[in-house]
């Protein structure tokens, strides 16, 4: 039986990659000025710079295929850490890229979450 925290983690992951793969600019709704992204070692701060980085990645289309999602409560204030592994398919590329990503989600008053911390790494084989 899935625990509540697993359901929240899975719902977030599904939503995040759906936006990423279909409407990348809309990811801005998931970050705030305090958000931090480390993308392949590059550190980026704040919703504007993070959204710019993601929108400028050198591919127009992509598809994330998630293999594993692990979630845990991160603190007393309702935060959740989510650890994802999967593959990233780019059109025209024969081989998928494998990746790992971790999110630290903080609840907002409206009942959903924003991404306070985001770290992404490709897993080279």
């Amino acid at each position, binding site marked *: 039986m899935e625990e509540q925290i697993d359901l929240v983690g899975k719902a977030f992951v599904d939503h995040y990659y759906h936006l990423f793969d279909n409407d990348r600019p809309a990811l801005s709704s998931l970050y705030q000025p*305090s958000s931090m992204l480390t993308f392949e070692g590059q550190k980026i701060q704040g919703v504007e710079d993070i959204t710019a980085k993601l929108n400028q990645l050198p591919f127009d289309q992509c598809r994330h295929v998630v293999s594993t999602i692990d979630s845990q409560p991160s603190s007393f204030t309702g935060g959740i850490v989510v650890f994802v592994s999967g593959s990233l398919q780019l059109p025209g590329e024969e081989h998928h890229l494998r990746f*790992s990503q971790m999110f630290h989600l903080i609840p907002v008053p409206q009942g959903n979450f924003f991404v306070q911390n985001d770290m992404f790494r490709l897993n080279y084989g």
Partner: protein
Amino acid sequence: MDPDAVAKAFVDHYYSTFDSNRAGLANLYQDGSMLTFEGQKILGSQNIVAKLVGLPFQQCQHNITTVDCQPSGAGGVLVFVSGTLQLAGEQHALKFSQMFHLMPTAQGSFYVLNDIFRLNYT
């Protein structure tokens, strides 16, 4: 507090302890600590150390490839690690990713509140 310095010191200490004296990891966890190891959820220092000490290999060596860290906003540090795990007698090293959420202790060091480990299969 410099998150990069905390993360580097922690990673060095964690994996050298893991590789030389696994039971010594006990003082890095507390009662509220959580480990998810290849999808299995374990709660509390005693259970976590029992799981790690009980892993089916006597000797191992972690080789760290990448360490990323960020302050977590809860006074803690999030650390995201990738690397390989070499088991004695095995020809091929296993690739892994691991994340830690470190929280400060009253004594001025850090303990592991959250720990998630996954092997990266190719």
